[in-house]
């Protein structure tokens, strides 16, 4: 029997899980560099890549069992720790760069803004290195492993371009035929597996479930609808959130700044190395305060890097009040249903780099997500019917879930879970419950392994999902030229939301004209909130959509046609078995076919 492998390619940490002969998913240890000259196994691989300087390790540094001469970068725990002291040589959150629409994701841009690294690497390569490391570690520790094609998780908020790049990185890393799965769905599969047949006791038909996933660096939301009759329930993912760079690390940083300011007023200023130590100490103190309600404060000692521990160590403490004010009221304030996050900074200029969330209030982002989910459902009669019609969904501006599955390290803390439930209950004016039995730390990799088995064997309950967004291609409008006015770009819906893997759709009723033999520009758009759009539908103005990619290519004319000719084509959208969206132009008379992938970069 072959094994089933799930890979959690996380923003802050990666993990790998397997469903083996026992039938139960288990996390597998990952071999990695731990110290300057030490190698060992850890259940998580920090998603950190350190690029050492020439001659930094004349003795070779930590040598992995499979190390080769030309692999100079260091990944994992040691990379993260070493890189904290030399941030210019450290790549963190490489995954978030994959979905950064304005970054050159194939260009050597990382570490971002580094002035000392000579040979930078691309976001695509960064993900490739992480995946290759996971695969090699797995093969090295399980040489006789035979596994079905693995499942790799991505944030539900990843658009088609980022998904395509993830698959490409996997391919380059030697992971062939990998399938992608959205992280909140993976967490849900892990929960289903863990509950066995008992899950039906916690969920009933017509429920709407929120998967609330807040990791170290990102927050990711999805809604899953429960339909069908009791005893024969089915699940459908009906909404995904936007990519949100906001998570547990922000909380630790905010607490550390607060403690540091308190120290400054009493005359102790911390240097940047002490601040690093403070962030670590504050994280441990926060976890202690959140898990033990009897504690009122936790002492903190911050050493300098000097050897004189006694003379220079600074004493302070973290209080329950600080955690309450900063973590609970700062990140999860109770807000009204119409309080939306501030999306842009007040200043006109933003420093380049990752687009971190400006508003720290996760509850406001949740309000925005549920508002957009409501709009999405309202746009589609079919989806509305799935959810039991308009009357059930009421007139509230938010699509309120009935229950919540929590995922991500921050939700180990009961007070944070309680606050999210309190917020939802407040919006809903009826109790919103928690799905019991979640494992916030390791669920994503475990769920991915469970899904790998489900795909291979066909056994188990599948969440109906399909594409999370609807996709459009920009089209020049056929309008009379007006001097001084550029024609409006229309948007043609080529793939509706919810299009499933392994399916294709031809827009048979319409014919379009394709310029050949000269460079033309293709623009791609997407939307999370237009579930009702049908393939072939034309939106009068693409400006209301989100532009995801732009491609300039020259399409060679088919045989018998001259360059510069416009040729009539039909459009066909395909979602491959691996969940990758492709767009085909068909020239009926010659049978010629051109493929455009959504995996193209924004210029």
């Amino acid at each position, binding site marked *: 029997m072959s094994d089933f492998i799930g890979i959690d390619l996380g923003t802050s940490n990666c993990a790998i899980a397997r469903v083996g002969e026992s039938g139960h998913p288990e996390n597998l240890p990952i071999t990695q560099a731990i110290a*300057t000259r030490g190698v060992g196994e850890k259940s998580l691989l920090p998603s950190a890549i350190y690029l050492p300087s020439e001659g930094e390790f004349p003795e070779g540094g930590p040598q992995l069992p499979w190390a080769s001469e030309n692999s100079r970068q260091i990944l994992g725990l040691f990379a993260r720790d070493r890189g904290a002291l030399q941030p210019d040589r450290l790549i963190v959150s490489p995954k978030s760069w994959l979905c950064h629409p304005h970054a050159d994701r194939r260009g050597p841009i990382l570490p971002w803004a580094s002035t000392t690294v000579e040979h930078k690497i691309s976001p695509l390569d960064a993900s490739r290195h992480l995946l290759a490391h996971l695969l090699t570690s797995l093969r090295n520790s399980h040489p006789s492993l035979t596994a079905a094609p693995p499942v790799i998780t991505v944030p539900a908020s990843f658009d088609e371009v980022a998904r395509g790049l993830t698959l490409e990185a996997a391919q380059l890393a030697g992971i062939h035929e990998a399938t992608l799965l959205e992280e909140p769905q993976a967490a849900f599969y892990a929960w289903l597996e863990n509950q066995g047949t008992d899950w039906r006791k916690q969920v009933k038909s017509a429920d709407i479930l929120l998967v609330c996933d807040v990791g170290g660096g990102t927050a990711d939301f999805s809604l899953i609808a429960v339909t069908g009759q009791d005893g024969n329930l089915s699940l459908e993912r009906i909404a995904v959130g936007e990519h949100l760079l906001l998570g547990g690390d922000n909380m630790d940083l905010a607490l550390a700044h607060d403690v540091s300011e308190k120290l400054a007023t009493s005359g102790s200023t911390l240097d940047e190395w002490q601040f690093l130590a403070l962030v670590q100490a504050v994280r441990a103190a926060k976890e202690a305060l959140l898990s033990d309600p009897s504690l009122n404060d936790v002492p903190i000692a911050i050493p300098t890097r000097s050897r004189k521990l006694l003379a220079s*160590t600074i004493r302070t403490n973290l209080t329950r009040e600080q955690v309450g004010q900063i973590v609970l009221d700062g990140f999860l304030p109770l807000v009204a249903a119409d309080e939306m996050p501030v999306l842009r900074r007040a200043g006109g200029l933003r420093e380049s780099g990752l687009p971190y969330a400006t508003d720290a209030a996760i509850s406001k982002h949740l309000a925005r997500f549920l508002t957009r989910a409501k709009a999405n459902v309202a746009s589609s009669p079919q989806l509305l019917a799935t959810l039991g019609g308009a009357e059930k969904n009421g007139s509230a501006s938010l699509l309120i879930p009935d229950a919540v599955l929590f995922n991500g390290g921050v939700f180990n803390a009961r007070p944070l879970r309680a606050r999210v439930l309190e917020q939802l209950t407040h919006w809903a004016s009826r109790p919103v419950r928690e799905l019991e039995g979640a494992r916030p730390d390791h669920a994503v990799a475990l769920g991915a392994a469970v899904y790998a088995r489900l795909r291979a064997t066909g056994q188990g309950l599948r969440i109906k999902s399909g594409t999370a967004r609807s996709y459009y291609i920009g089209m020049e409008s056929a309008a009379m030229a007006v001097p001084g006015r550029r024609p409006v770009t229309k948007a043609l819906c080529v793939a509706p939301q919810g299009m499933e893997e392994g399916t294709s759709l031809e827009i048979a009723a319409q014919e379009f004209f394709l310029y050949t033999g000269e460079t033309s520009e293709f623009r791609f758009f997407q939307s999370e909130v237009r579930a009702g759009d049908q393939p072939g539908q034309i939106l009068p103005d693409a400006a209301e959509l989100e532009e995801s990619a732009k491609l300039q290519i020259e399409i060679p004319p088919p045989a018998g046609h001259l360059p510069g000719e416009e040729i009539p084509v039909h459009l066909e959208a395909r979602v491959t078995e691996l969940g990758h969206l492709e767009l085909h132009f068909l020239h009926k008379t010659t049978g010629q076919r051109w493929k455009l992938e959504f995996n193209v970069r924004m210029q």
Partner: protein
Amino acid sequence: MKAPLIASGFVLLGINFAAVYHPDQNLTLAAQTVSAAIGMVCVFLATRKQPQKAATPAVIQPIAPPPAPPRPEAEIAAFLALLQENGRLVDFAKEDITSATDQQLGAAARVVHAGCRKVLSDYFEISPFRTENEGTAVTLESGYDAPAHRLLGSVPANPPYSGKLVHPGWIARSIKLPRVTGTTDQRPWPVLAPAEIEISK
């Protein structure tokens, strides 16, 4: 050579872990933490495994040849370096604490304690050897696990031995220390903590 080392290591560990939880005695706490860590070094020295040979599965190419076994000192140095890196153990033990205040010692001990505790929980699975509470009356029958018990006071010639448990002992159910690699270092003095230089901007 191994058995006495294990024993002395665990004794140090044992004695010290028993003493660690008296938060009002900062001085004791700090000093005990240090010798607890030295105990850990002894346990490690005695129980360390031979370096594993890298498995060479056919599926992965290329695989570097397994490195030459490191000198035992390199492993001990690497472990001590871990305690220094995480818990500043060498800094602390090498400081003169005679004139330090208990408050200073307390603050420093928190740093040492947090770091050494992290090393313990990351790389060892440690649990008490006996599950009874201290002070419980226990009887050791003939054939008892002699290396894991130490009898105090006047001991009769033969078991059964009856007495009071004064310390439950500690055992390491697993030890998963980092494997030392890259042993081309020929210098006679291993680096426990590198000198640190902050580059001027």
